[in-house]
């Protein structure tokens, strides 16, 4: 890799100043009921990235607003060239509103309503629009951008007791390097800050940020008590993998954030206003956490795992880092970097950290991740309350 390759990348400049590392046309459903039309369009126009989900309606106002912000955020993501919004018509996540919010970013956006003409006619019109958007997107030209244009989300899923020893500290090294180069790095999963919140609060840039960290963790703890009672907030695989308490899991999880000061705490699917390390209030469920960071503008997600997971994110390359060589042996087709070499004595945390940093820059330059190659693009919108 050249010297320039370490500090800059060729991306797609957008009219709002952001820079995409991909150049996708999204076909975005605003409610589960419109998914069929989206799927039909994607079948006819394989070049688009379809987003279907079960959200967008049947919730209170708070979750409806969260859905609108998430959907509009996905459409606004720098990796997106243009967006075709497909709505049913009567849903809480109003399609015209979502389209308008995306249009504010300067991206080409159109929306179609299934209730105005039925699924078949909506899909037929959508196919034409999507083809036009794809043609237009092919004309977008790349330009050199600094790493300060990058927003990188951090995620861990299917953690084991090695995650906090190998994969997460290595990602922490990469996170510190990205921050040094002026990038924005998002640490997520508030559930996995329970028991490590005092450390994060101690690294907060201002007393307000420290209060914000403690506040979101406390809120999550209160909900966790309602949902779990005296049970452990750990997945069965976490316990099988050697994790004993949420504190132990959290202390390993936060290693991904490296050692930088925490400059801001943002709500789910909100865009960071600060550079450097920021915290986003997301759930521990990987799919919804990835979605929140992508909607907040992350162009790349670095995702550690111990037990192994293939999960990707629509429109956003996900780089997988595994904590141990045994899982890498089983799931090498789904995983980009084996941090298990640290435990095997074959590499240091620093070395793997620098490798992850290089992989982020290469991915920004267009290198395909395993999750992209495998077509993994899961999407899920967080809800704070139940459906009704």
């Amino acid at each position: 890799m050249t010297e320039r390759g370490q500090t800059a990348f060729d991306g797609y400049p957008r009219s709002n100043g952001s820079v995409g590392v991909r150049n996708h046309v999204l076909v975005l459903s605003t409610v589960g009921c419109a998914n069929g039309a989206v799927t039909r369009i994607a079948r006819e126009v394989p070049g688009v990235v379809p987003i279907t989900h079960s959200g967008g309606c049947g919730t209170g106002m708070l979750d409806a607003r969260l859905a609108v912000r998430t959907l509009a955020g996905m459409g606004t993501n720098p990796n997106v060239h243009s967006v075709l919004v497909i709505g049913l018509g009567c849903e809480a996540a109003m399609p015209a509103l979502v389209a308008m919010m995306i249009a504010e970013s300067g991206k080409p956006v159109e929306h179609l309503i299934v209730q105005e003409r039925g699924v078949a006619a909506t899909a037929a019109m959508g196919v034409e629009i999507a083809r036009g958007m794809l043609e237009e997107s092919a004309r977008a030209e790349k330009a050199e951008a600094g790493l300060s244009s990058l927003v990188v989300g951090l995620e861990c899923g299917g953690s084991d007791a090695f995650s906090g020893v190998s994969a997460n500290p290595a990602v922490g090294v990469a996170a510190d390097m990205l921050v040094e180069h002026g990038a924005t790095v998002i640490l997520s999963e508030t559930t996995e800050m329970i028991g490590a919140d005092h450390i994060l609060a101690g690294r907060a840039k201002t007393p307000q940020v420290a209060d914000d960290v403690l506040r979101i963790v406390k809120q999550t703890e209160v909900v966790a008590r309602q949902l779990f009672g005296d049970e452990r907030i750990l997945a069965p695989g976490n316990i099988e993998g050697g994790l004993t308490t949420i504190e132990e899991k959290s202390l390993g999880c936060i290693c991904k954030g490296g050692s930088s000061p925490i400059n801001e705490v943002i709500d789910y699917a909100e865009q960071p206003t600060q550079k450097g390390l920021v915290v986003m209030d997301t759930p521990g469920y990987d799919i919804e956490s990835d979605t929140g960071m992508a909607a907040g503008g992350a162009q790349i997600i670095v995702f550690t795992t111990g037990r192994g997971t293939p999960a990707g994110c629509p429109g956003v390359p996900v780089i997988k880092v595994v904590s141990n060589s045994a899982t890498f042996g089983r799931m090498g087709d789904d995983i980009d970097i084996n941090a298990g070499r640290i435990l095997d004595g074959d590499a240091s945390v620093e070395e793997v950290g620098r490798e992850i940093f290089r992989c982020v820059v290469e991915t920004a330059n267009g290198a395909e991740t395993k999750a992209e190659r495998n077509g993994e693009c899961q999407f899920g919108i967080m809800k704070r309350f139940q459906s009704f």
Partner: protein
Amino acid sequence: MIVTMVNALKLNERDNVAVLLKDAGAGEEVVVQGGKGVRALEPVKAGHKVAVKQIDAGTPVFRYGEEIGAATETIAPGTWVHTHNVRSQRMGDLE
């Protein structure tokens, strides 16, 4: 008794547990990187924790130099340390 070298990691001076890099059988000598070795009193799987010193009932279990929970019973050195003898201190102290 079979004595095998088993590697385990102690991450911080303050820690009273080490994380096993390989499965250890009962009676095996666990060689701890970053600390004094200990003989496993029972089988401990890779990724799981073994006590490297006595942990009195009700006192903190330390990993990363931080508290990861409290012992629910007195844990002897060489004992498997997991959900059966450690409780979270965060999930039990809220109103």
